[in-house]
Each structure stands twice: as structure tokens, then as C-alpha cells.
């Protein structure tokens, strides 16, 4: 972790510290710290299922039971006994307490190791495994299953249960994206709490009692809100599984890359899981200034186009009988020749708000060196909600504002008018399907030259004289500024298919062909140069952005979900 998250300015005034002994060593913790968090901070991990720092703590799984003690109250006139550190001697309680819902107190002792703690864990594990099916070989959670992990660490190794296991519904369709297996459920209630507390869509609940307790959706309801797949992430076992990821790949094969979601302007921090150049899933990554630990289903499932069969894999040139593959050199030269062939006022560059800062910077460098006035990105808005989704559907609109100093979409109507009237003869479209951006096919057919870079084959590529295959967000490095003004980093998870290239490389080559050498060899060079030109990036490098990003702009935009979470944290309802 190179950067720690910047905490909210509303931190509590004076922190009251209390002395707590954890596994025989005295530490100081702020008053009100949960025992489980105190233990975690000093490296004594307490196993748990139901506890989640972003949710309330019902304390129902009993896995986090630890041995606890307090100094005994002295009789009148008696001096309290001291240990060798000068601290009051602890009177250990004969029964364990749960670490997740209790807070630390002055003079308290916690033992996470030792006979009592280990035996209760063993007991809890045995009870949880009584009715748990032995279908790890077909369970998607296997490999990242808490029950598996703790069974190995704290379990018995074999079952003493000789009776028949309780049968419960399996393979239940509870929502469009989620499948429920009730036999695997260990009744931690994390999903119930998530839907009730975070997603405000309380459709899940328990029915029946005792060992027959069953997780179910309320009659006539379905778990179909836009945040439903977060329940799959927080499910400690394989009870809730994602239909999209179901049986696709075992998790131990997946390589995780820390990156960003580019579906909307929020820029949720994610991990892209891939194996052998194929992306299998995306999961949220904790960033308490952007997305907490959640993300929306739309963003999460928006990666299938990366593996699509419609990916462009070769630069193409249009001849009389359709598009033909060509070399990068010829394609780029053709673009630069076309840019030279007409006056700058007859050229338009339509870029995309989905481009990284580096790409936007190079686009800007290209239009400046050619003296092109008609350049803009295609704005996209709508679809924001009261949780995480931003109204701005472009992931990098603030990058456009910061690097170009222009409002996205300001010049676009004029450019469209110019193309329609025939005043603009050459168009360079970077990552945007112009047909969807409000241009008629007939108008685009009239152009003397149309070059476009795309990820997927589309109508604009069909009309283009030169098609340049570009890389998707999962295949490139770069940075973006989200709607709250946070500079964050994309990382490369998989390789681009075929000869497809990073957009910044395409732009660099066009600039090279058009204006000559520019000394840029890597995406770091682009950022370095950009940091010299754009004030808010000064002193930064791609590496210095870190995994959690840095705040570079103040936009005044608030994240509704984070605001509510902070409020709950301030009230002490959640740990946060």
C-alpha cells in the first residue's frame, strides 16, 4: 500500500486510548474499538463469518469467540495486584466472549490463542459442518471459502456426525444474477444485512428454525437490485454464487490485477481476475474514498466484450471491395497523410471520455501540432443512482476538463454540423462509434477520409477508410480522474488480441508520422510529460498514484453510499 486513504475531515476530536493486553502483550487502542479489530491491528487474526466491518454485527456465527478477562475489582482497602509490566492483573473469565460485537476496555485482556479459544472454535466448526454438504469439488467458492480455510485451521479433520444431513433447497433461482444453495449456507446473515442496510432492498430473510433455518427471498420478491452481486462477494461460503461466474473457472487459477471499473464516472476500484489472457470476473476492491467495498452489477459484468469475438485484431484499410488487413506503419502513414492533405479547419478529431489521461494528453498534443480546432469527446450522462453509480457515464470526463481545459461535448454540436454540411472533410474518431453519437451514416460516407480506432467492430469502423484496433481497459495501463476528482490507475490484466495496440501507442505513432520524433517510449514517459504540462499532475508519476489513487481536483460531488456509511460509522453502528 503506497497510499493510505485520506480520512474524512470529521474525525473525532480527542482519542481516548485504553490499555489492552492481546495474547500477553499490552497495547493501546482508541476507546470503542471492537475487540476483533484491535486483535487484527496487532496481527492476531480472529476467525469470523458474520462480522463485516461495513455491516452491523449481530454476532450470530460465534466463530470469533475469544477468551477475555478484566482486572478484578479489589475489596475495600485491598491494593490491586500488578503484573510484571505494572499493569493490573487480569482475572480471566471462565466463558469466552465474541470479539466482533464487544469493544475494548481499560485493563482488558484478550487471548485469541490458548486452550479455551481453540476448543470453542473447534466446537463451532464442528456444528457448522454438521449439515454442510461435501460438494467442494463442484462449489465455486472452493479456494476462497472461509469455511474451508477455518476447517483446515481450526476444524476437527473428520466428522462424528453419523445421522442424515438436513436437506434444504439447492440451486434456487433467487434473482437474475444470483443462485442460492441453501445447504451450503451457514446462516451468517451477511447478505440479509447487506440488502437491508446498504442496498435498501430487504428481500432476503431466514425461515424455519434450528438446524432447518433456511435463507430465502420473501414471497413474490427477487434479489434483483443493481448491487445484488455484492452478496456473492461477502458470502463466506458458496451459498450465493454468481450466475455469470458460475462454473467458469476455479478461483485458484485466476490472476488478480488491481484496476478500475470504467463503466461510469465513479471509477470503482476493482480486481480483474484473469487466466491465460481471458478475463473471468471483476470484484470490488476496498477504497473508502471511492466505493467502500462495493460495486454495481452493471459495472461488474461489463467485461465480456474484452473476450468478444468481435474484437478488431488487425489494422484495416478500406478498398473498393471492403476492408483489408494492412500493417500498422501503412495504416498510420495513411492517417497522417490524410491529416496533411486538407486544411486544419477541415479536420475534426472526436475522442472519447473513456480514454485515459495519457491518451487524452497525446490527442491534445496531436490537435495542437496540427492546429486542429474541431476536437471534442462524446459526453454520456444518465443512469446515476443514490448509491455508487455516477450520472456521468464516461469514466474520465474530469480528465478531459483537466488536460484539455474544455467541457466535454461543448464543441460536438458544431463538429456534427460541420460534418453534415460538408465543411469537415477528414475525421479521426478515437474509440467512439460516431453513428451512436448523433451522426448519420450518409454524412459519414461523404467524408473524404475517416479513420477510427475501436475495440469492437461497429458501424463506424465499417465506414472508416482506416480502422485501427485498440486495447480495452483491461489491456492497458494509464490513469483516469473520477467524478469526485480522484486520480486513479488502470493496470494491465491481459494482453491485447492480435495486433491491437494501446491507444497511446497509436496516437504516438500518428504524431510521429505527422510531426516527427517526440521522445516518448513508454506510458510513463507520457505521464511524465503530462505532469510537466498539467498543473494538477505536477510531482506525480504513474507509480506514485498508488493503488488507491490521489485526490487532484475538488468537484464537490458526494458519493451517497459513502456518506451514509460515514454516518453509520460516526454513530458506531459499523466499524467502517
Amino acid at each position: 500500500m503506497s497510499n493510505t486513504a485520506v480520512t474524512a475531515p470529521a474525525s473525532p476530536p480527542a482519542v481516548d486510548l485504553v490499555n489492552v493486553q492481546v495474547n500477553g502483550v499490552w497495547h493501546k487502542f482508541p476507546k470503542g474499538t471492537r475487540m476483533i479489530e484491535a486483535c487484527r491491528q496487532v496481527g492476531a487474526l480472529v476467525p469470523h463469518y458474520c462480522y463485516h466491518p461495513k455491516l452491523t454485527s449481530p454476532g450470530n456465527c460465534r466463530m470469533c469467540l475469544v477468551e477475555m478477562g478484566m482486572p478484578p475489582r479489589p475489596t475495600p482497602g485491598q491494593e490491586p495486584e500488578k503484573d510484571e509490566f505494572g499493569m493490573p492483573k487480569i482475572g480471566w473469565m471462565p466463558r469466552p466472549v465474541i470479539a466482533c460485537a464487544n469493544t475494548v476496555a481499560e485493563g482488558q485482556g484478550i487471548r485469541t490463542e490458548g486452550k479455551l479459544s481453540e476448543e470453542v472454535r473447534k466446537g463451532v466448526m464442528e456444528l457448522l459442518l454438521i449439515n454442510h454438504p461435501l460438494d467442494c469439488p463442484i462449489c465455486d467458492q472452493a479456494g476462497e471459502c472461509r469455511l474451508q480455510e477455518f476447517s483446515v485451521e481450526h476444524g476437527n479433520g473428520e466428522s462424528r456426525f453419523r445421522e442424515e444431513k438436513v436437506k434444504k433447497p439447492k440451486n434456487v433461482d433467487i434473482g437474475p444474477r444470483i443462485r442460492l444453495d441453501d445447504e451450503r449456507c451457514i446462516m451468517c446473515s451477511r447478505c440479509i444485512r447487506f440488502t437491508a442496510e446498504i442496498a435498501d432492498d430487504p428481500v432476503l430473510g431466514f425461515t424455519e428454525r434450528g438446524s432447518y433455518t433456511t435463507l430465502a427471498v420473501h414471497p413474490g420478491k427477487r434479489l434483483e437490485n443493481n448491487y445484488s452481486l455484492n452478496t456473492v462477494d461477502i458470502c463466506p461460503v458458496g451459498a450465493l454464487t454468481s450466475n455469470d461466474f458460475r462454473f467458469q473457472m476455479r478461483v485458484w487459477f485466476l490472476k488478480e490485477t488491481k484496476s478500475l471499473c470504467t463503466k461510469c464516472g465513479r471509477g470503482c476500484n476493482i480486481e480483474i481476475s484473469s487466466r491465460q489472457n481471458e478475463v473471468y470476473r471483476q470484484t470490488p476492491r476496498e477504497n473508502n474514498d471511492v466505493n467502500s467495498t462495493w460495486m454495481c452489477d452493471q459495472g461488474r459484468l461489463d467485461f465480456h466484450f474484452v473476450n468478444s469475438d468481435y474484437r478488431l485484431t488487425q489494422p484495416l484499410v478500406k478498398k473498393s471491395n471492403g476492408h483489408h488487413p494492412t500493417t500498422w506503419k501503412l495504416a498510420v502513414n495513411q492517417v497522417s497523410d490524410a491529416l496533411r492533405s486538407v486544411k486544419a479547419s477541415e479536420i475534426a478529431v472526436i475522442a472519447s471520455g473513456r480514454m485515459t489521461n495519457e491518451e487524452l494528453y497525446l490527442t491534445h498534443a496531436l490537435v495542437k501540432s496540427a492546429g486542429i480546432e474541431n476536437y471534442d469527446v462524446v459526453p454520456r450522462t444518465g443512469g446515476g443512482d443514490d448509491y455508487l453509480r455516477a450520472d456521468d457515464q464516461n469514466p474520465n470526463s474530469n480528465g478531459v476538463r483537466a488536460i484539455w481545459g474544455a467541457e466535454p461535448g461543448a464543441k460536438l454540436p458544431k463538429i456534427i454540423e460541420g460534418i453534415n454540411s460538408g465543411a469537415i472533410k477528414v475525421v479521426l474518431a478515437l474509440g467512439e462509434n460516431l453513428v451512436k453519437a448523433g451522426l448519420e451514416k450518409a454524412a459519414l460516407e461523404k467524408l473524404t477520409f475517416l479513420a477510427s480506432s475501436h475495440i469492437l467492430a461497429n458501424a463506424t469502423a465499417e465506414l472508416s477508410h482506416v480502422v485501427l484496433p485498440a486495447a480495452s481497459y483491461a489491456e492497458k495501463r494509464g490513469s483516469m480522474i473520477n467524478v469526485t476528482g480522484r486520480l486513479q490507475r488502470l493496470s494491465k490484466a491481459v494482453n491485447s488480441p492480435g495486433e491491437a495496440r494501446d491507444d497511446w501507442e497509436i496516437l504516438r505513432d500518428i504524431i510521429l508520422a505527422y510531426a516527427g520524433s517526440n521522445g516518448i517510449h513508454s506510458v510513463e514517459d507520457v505521464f511524465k510529460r503530462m505532469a510537466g504540462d498539467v498543473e494538477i499532475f505536477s510531482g506525480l508519476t504513474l507509480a506514485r498514484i498508488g493503488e488507491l489513487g490521489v485526490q487532484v481536483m475538488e468537484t464537490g460531488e458526494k458519493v451517497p453510499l459513502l456518506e451514509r456509511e460515514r454516518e453509520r460509522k460516526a454513530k458506531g453502528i459499523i466499524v467502517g
Partner: protein
Amino acid sequence: MATVVVQRPKLKWHEKWFISTLAKGLLITLGHAIAILRGKKKVTMQYPEEKWDAHLPDHYRGAPALVTDEHGRERCVSCQLCEFICPPRAITIIPEEIPSTDPWAKVEKRPRLFNIDMIRCIYCGMCEEVCPEQAIFLRKDYAITGLSRAEMVHDKKRLYEIGGVREGLVNKWNDLK
């Protein structure tokens, strides 16, 4: 360190010049030759007309194959542990969901594609050892040949052909399940 004085045998001159030892060797060879010519002894096997198969030991490790059980169920549930453990990475599996119309729909998962590249396979038997479903076994087939690389990849169909039906295995997916 103690020094051990080795007593070398005292060799005669014809032994030093390999004359008598050579004759002794030739005599042994001649003895075998006569025994074979008289049909009293057999030392070579006429492969492939004759095969060693009947004498293969129980622990012999040949080609890995998938098996079905006496209920006609393909035992592999596509957990991909064999793919994970395989040292030369010979195994490739793509899982799929068993459709709800299938009599074994409760097993939920099966391989859509199961390939073992027999050029890569080193017959180590790790796949058999790791399999939690008793679905993959090393058979005694050793003569795996082909005219192309593609032919040397055993697909799911071929693996079940080699493996056949194996009875008496643990039936984890019984009626109680």
C-alpha cells in the same frame, strides 16, 4: 584417517591380457546361444506381436483415463484439481452446468471439454491421487501413438473409451444426497 591396504588379486599374464577372461565370456555366450538354439530358453520378446501386458505389475502407470460408474454416471465433476496438480500441464478442462433435464442434474457440474495431451503427460499419477471424485485412473495402456500432435490429445470421448466402467467406487451422489 585409517589407511586400508587393499589386497589386489595377483593376476596371471593371460588374465592381464584378457585372454582367459575373454574366452570365459565367449563360453557363457555360447552356452546361451546353444540353449536358445535348442529351444530350451527364451530371452527376447517379439514386440509388437508378443506383449508384456500380462506381466505388468499392479502399480504400473499407463495412460490416464476417465471412468463412468455402474449407474452410468460420468464421475468427473470438473473440479479441475487434476488440471491444477498436473506437473507438465497436460490437462485442460472447461466445465459446464448439467442441464436440469439430465437425470444427474443434482451433480450440477461436469466437464464440457476434458483434454489430456499425451505428448505432455509424464504418467506420474498425480491426477489419480488428487481426484476427490474417483473419476480419473491411470490404466495400463502404454502404447499411445499418433501421426499428428492433434491425434495425441485425448479428448473426453476418447478418455471415457479408454477408462470404461469401474464398479464399486464410493457413490457420493447417492439418494441421500
